[in-house]
């Protein structure tokens, strides 16, 4: 029997992982409830939205429009940024014939709304980078790939370091095919 000890140990670990996964399983209904719960913790809402959005087998206007709006109207910047990630953008895209719409309209409107008096704030920068550089490209609202400069700015915002002047950042984005004035794109 001792010869089987490694197998038994591994199977015991596997069993523990499976039991834990079963014990922490969240139903899709519960995930949706938490995602829409204004009182819930922002991270819990984002994780629940992630689960609900990834499990869906069809586009859900409830996620792509209702929840995206709810997130974008929230006080918490983290929630507003979560609205422009692939999870909800995928659900925000309408189909036009054989093709998906090129841009998720709600997220697009938010990211390209006119800048306030503070210019390119850390939140606006993160939202722009998260939305426009997302992996998956045009099919989910992305344009091109992130550069190390953009990643550096993004990380600077997370650690509270100063950003370059707005003009410099918008000029940079313009040079990389993102509209610099951050107006809504054509046709919207």
């Amino acid at each position, binding site marked *: 029997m001792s010869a089987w000890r490694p197998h038994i140990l*591994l199977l015991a670990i596997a069993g523990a992982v499976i039991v834990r996964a079963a014990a922490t399983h969240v139903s899709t209904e519960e995930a949706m409830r938490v995602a829409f719960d204004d009182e819930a913790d922002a991270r819990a809402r*984002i994780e629940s939205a992630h689960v609900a959005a990834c499990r869906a087998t069809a586009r859900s206007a409830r996620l792509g429009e209702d929840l995206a709006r709810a997130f974008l109207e929230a006080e918490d910047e983290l929630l507003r940024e979560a609205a422009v990630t692939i*999870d909800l953008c995928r659900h925000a895209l309408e189909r036009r014939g054989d093709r*998906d719409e090129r841009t998720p309209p709600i997220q697009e409107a938010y990211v390209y709304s006119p800048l306030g008096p503070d210019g390119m704030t850390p939140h606006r920068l993160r939202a722009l980078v*998260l939305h426009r*550089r997302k992996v998956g490209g045009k099919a989910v609202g992305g344009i091109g790939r*992130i*550069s*190390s400069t953009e990643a550096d700015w993004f990380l600077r915002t997370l650690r509270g370091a100063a950003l370059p002047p707005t003009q410099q950042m918008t000029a940079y984005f313009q040079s990389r095919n993102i509209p610099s004035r951050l107006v809504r794109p054509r046709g919207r």
Partner: protein
Amino acid sequence: MAASEPEPAALVTGGALARAPWALILVIAALGVALRAALLALALPIEIQSDEANYLYLALGLERFGIYFDQHRYLWPPGYAWLLHCVIGDGSDADLTTFRAIQVAASSAIGITTMLFAWRLFSSRAAAVAGLLWSVHLPLAAFTHLLWSETVFLALFLPALWHVLAALDRSAEGDERRAATRLLVAGLLLGGALHLKEAPLFLMVPLALLLAWRARPMGPAATLRLATLLPLAALVTLLPWTARNHEVYGRVALSGSTLGENVYQGLNAHYVNFDMVPLARERGRRGLQPLAEIERRAFTAPPTAENGAPDPGWVRAATTFHPIERQSENLRRGIEWSVDHPGWLARTRLKKWSDLVTPFSFFVRHQALGHYAPESGLGGALRRPLVIWSLLSSVIVLLGAALGGALSVGAGHGRALLAVTIGYVFSAALLVSMSRFRVPIEPLLIVLCAGFLTHGVAHRSIPRFLFGGAAVIALGALWWISWPETRAAAAMALEVTR
């Protein structure tokens, strides 16, 4: 290159590892790491490209939300983005350079294991030659300063293979306990590697069969134990991630979920060699002759449809919304289409192998695209000599490996392990292929090349000569297939205009 008897290294038992020429191995590994560190210094400043940017974006997602997002058309394993996230989380401006330096250090595991393989299969002399080849093999070395997962992956995958070989050795001695220990370690390492790349997932099957075959003399129970331990350990290592995928997607995805997209690219009318995709765009930008006009179309052209026009192929299963379900639908469409076009399938698979064994590499591709800044060492004065060396290095390693595999390596489970692993990579390349997909076996090719350079025709027999001749002819034929675009791309690397 006179034939010579293998040193006792090839015949060792019991405490084999202790008798490896460690001083020699460590000195050469240090040399290889130092050369890679120098390459890194010469490569800076370097901007991230394509998948590098995608990994960084995913790392930022982990940093900001603690969530690993999928990539819409596929789900990559999370390991590389997670490692990046761990480093960029420190917040230093030099984070990416730090990460590249970590890769340089991690490559020592690749160098050491390469030499151990050469020592085990041939001799200490072969280990030294393999180590030197590894040190200066640019197609491999360049990945240490690029943000592709190849280096970290190999630093886990190659040691996993080494422990499988050690397990086969212990198994041959009838020492089941030590064989099991080796397989446990191998499984953990392979599980770690599968967090970085999905590609070796099914390699566990032939490896388990090899282990079972070699363990037969130990009886059915021991055979079962040893054959199942490697996949079990690897899968248990993966299980937390698999469980996460099941919770998030409601579907099973052991490591990643990329097969369907690869089928879309690989079993479809439009031939894709990912080495050449950005080069084709770049040639358009520079006004150079399109690659499609240069390549040998007999191996890439789409089949002809019933109306006489080129068959447009099939479209992605865009209406299947679920990212993982979409993979199986793409797989179904690809297989169905391929069955309908067997002639096209045969001729384009030759091109796949040609793309796999090309002397081209990411280092040369980067040079061809002008990704190394002109003010950097690699993009400046060293560009041309290093491009030439990179191409030559691949030619030497591939030719040497073909001859070493046929004429130098002795029979036994070492050879069987290499054959299974190399055969697996060649099989996988029948779907999608490019020079980068050869990286998992590049150290093994170096080992075989080193064996040939040090031991020459150590094993003389008609079948071996026939096999060696066939391998060299096949290699030459495969190079011929891709020669026009390889030459065009190499010319871009040598005469790049920015």
